[in-house]
């Protein structure tokens, strides 16, 4: 057992952190937040591409660096810490994964575009209130043409290509690859709880769409995304907590630093505990993802449930620990509060993932019981 990042990965983290501290202070996220026209930070995106980060986990034969998904986690955590306002997750954790797992020869060509920063992805699964569901999906592809409305689509304005969940001609929901710069696609910006991230309503009206992968691909993509996003969440939760710790050391009330009061210090200790628990579950998740373990579905659900809880708690209480100042627009605390909510919901809420976790643990228990008998 070697249940931690390697030395090389720690070296990578050091570089990534140094780069992001210099190039991506929280003012970058705030700029997108404050600018009602902006959907992401184009300049930052180009810098990340320049660093090779979109290429990191793509095999060398497709123009990538051929590194592992565990290496990618290092990036994810650091991007989460700085609330990077870029379509990284949609492009790298989801679209690139879909292409690598299930893309056909031609589709895989997009990987080189992702590596080069020319292709930005998004995944369009939600259509209306309620978790995205097999039963309620209304979008449909007939004779290669997609009709339906998806909302919200995170990174839907920035994206060049979408993975769209829709029924095929037999009525089976599956994913389709849809270039977004075509007739038959209309995009509109949506206001969300986290305006530092891009979201759109996309109306497809006879847009060209080609199937990708088997129907199970969506679950596999969500599991992978759950693990990688868990690292972003842990990064954000740690940063939110660290800010509150720093503030609680400096801010005095009644003649003492507020961090010396147990109400504050124990809450921050709880945040630390939550973050460690989320981190450990995320580690197991990335091991399961990278090693191709049968445990992936369970590990991913556990990573996501723990990470959502940790980030919400940390963001909520870090804001609270700042007192009145934390409630102002100018302070950074609401950026974390908003991002925690964004990551909570973006691939289905914790409610849905708790259900998935329960089902997975039960299924595994049954399997082990069957094997034992």
């Amino acid at each position, binding site marked *: 057992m070697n249940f931690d990042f390697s030395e090389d990965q720690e070296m990578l983290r050091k570089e990534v952190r140094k780069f992001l501290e210099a190039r991506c202070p929280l003012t970058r996220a705030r700029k997108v937040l404050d600018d009602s026209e902006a959907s992401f930070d184009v300049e930052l995106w180009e810098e990340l591409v320049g660093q090779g980060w979109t290429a990191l986990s793509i095999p060398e034969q497709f123009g990538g660096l051929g590194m592992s998904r565990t290496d990618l986690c290092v990036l994810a955590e650091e991007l989460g810490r700085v609330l990077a306002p870029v379509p990284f997750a949609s492009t790298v954790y989801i679209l690139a994964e879909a292409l690598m797992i299930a893309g056909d020869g031609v589709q895989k060509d997009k990987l080189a575009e992702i590596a080069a920063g020319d292709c930005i992805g998004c995944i369009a699964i939600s259509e209306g209130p309620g978790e995205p569901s097999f039963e309620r999906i209304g979008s449909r592809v007939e004779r290669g043409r997609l009709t339906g409305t998806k909302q919200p689509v*995170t990174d839907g304005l920035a994206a060049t290509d979408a993975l769209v969940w829709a029924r095929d001609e037999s009525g089976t929901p599956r994913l389709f690859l849809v270039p977004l710069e075509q007739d038959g696609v209309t995009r509109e910006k949506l206001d969300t709880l986290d305006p530092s991230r891009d979201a759109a309503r996309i109306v497809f009206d006879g847009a060209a769409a080609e199937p990708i992968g088997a129907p199970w691909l969506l679950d596999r993509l969500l599991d992978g995304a759950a693990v990688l996003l868990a690292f972003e969440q842990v990064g954000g939760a740690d940063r939110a907590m660290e800010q509150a710790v720093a503030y609680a050391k400096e801010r005095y009330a009644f003649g003492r630093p507020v961090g010396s009061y147990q109400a504050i210090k124990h809450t921050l200790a709880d945040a630390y505990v939550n973050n460690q628990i989320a981190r450990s579950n995320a580690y197991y998740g990335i091991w399961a993802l990278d090693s191709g373990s049968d445990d992936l579905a369970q590990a991913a659900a556990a990573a996501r449930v723990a990470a959502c809880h940790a980030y919400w708690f940390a963001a909520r209480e870090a804001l609270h620990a700042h*007192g009145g100042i934390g409630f102002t627009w100018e302070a950074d605390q609401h950026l974390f509060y908003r991002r925690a909510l964004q990551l909570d919901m973006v691939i289905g809420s914790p409610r*849905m993932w708790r259900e998935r976790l329960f089902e997975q643990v039960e299924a595994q228990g049954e399997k082990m019981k069957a094997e034992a008998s």
Partner: protein
Amino acid sequence: MDFSDTPQEAEYRARARDFLDAHKDKLPSLSGSEAARLKKQRIWQAIKADNGYACITWDSEWGGAGGTAMERVIFREEEAGRGVPDAFFGIGLGLCVPTIIKYASDKQKAELVRPAVRGDQIWCQLFSEPAAGSDLAGVRAKAVADGDEWVVSGQKVWTSGAHYSDWGLVITRTDPSKPKHKGLTMFFVAMDSPGIEIRPIHQMSGGVEFNEVFFNDVRIPDAQRLGEIDAGWGVAIYALMNERVQGGKERGIPAGETIRLARSTPVADGTLADDGAFRAAFADWYVRTRGVQLTRYRTLTAMSRGQTPGPEASIGKLVTAFELQEMSRRLVEAQGPFGLIDDRAMAFCEGNVHHDLLHAPGIRIAGGTDEILRNIIAERVLGLPKEPQPDKNVPFSETK
């Protein structure tokens, strides 16, 4: 143990209803710009004052009706039921003017009280500062005597309504060589005095309810001092104790609507209202928010028996602010990714739940943080010992 109106209360309620029905076209609402709303509220406040509904429990000497706390609540219930917001005059009539009545000269009272009761003049409270939040005695804004005036400089913060107020109650430090609670002095000040600068605070929820107020050598006549020099802490305590027991509704969407929303939220297997996790959380939320409401009725009963409400009234905000935060998150998240959409035209309940989710952090802080409220309950209700306060007997100028 009777939860219904007594005959007298029922009669009062009937009269209040008649009054409100008769003035249907004058009732203000939540819509319109701040200026427009303020105008309508002022007109309505004057009508209430003329009919004994403005300060129901006050003596008639001050424009009140000498009524009971229960009557005030009944009137407010009926008013709220017709969509009349409780706005603009609360801080003045709940906190500032009672302090004026207690500490100002007869002449000042004669000039100030009735205009406030009628809504002609509005008051704000200038206590908090960047370094004086939970620890209110950490006030740094200083007042220096100059003849029969004081010169005030410093910064106040979290002042509701400073921009439309005529008068403010301001606490200042007059002797930094004394321990922190002992060198403070209270004044009232005209908000259009030269040197007062008001800047709105942009909240994370998007709203602008509060202001920063800068005092740049603002001159206040000594006649506007309330209480003795360096005895302002006691005046502040008196002012804050007067914050009234609120009537009316809780924040957040009502129970029935919450369930109807859950019924319309699809989950994998039926609707959110069929989900045991939601049902259990709803039940806990219900008993807590309902419990706060019922506790307020207990307090009112005590008041109608002549008792003064004690620190136990602190439980209301402590419970409801946190419950609001968690229930609004639960409802928003149950929408799945769609819950992210924060747009009045698309989100359920016209986006009010999303607004609650972004507003609740402020409620947990304003008017006493969760931690301060727990301290109050623990120390003043349960009698648990205070924590060591290292700066208590130290000259203010030597504290951090």
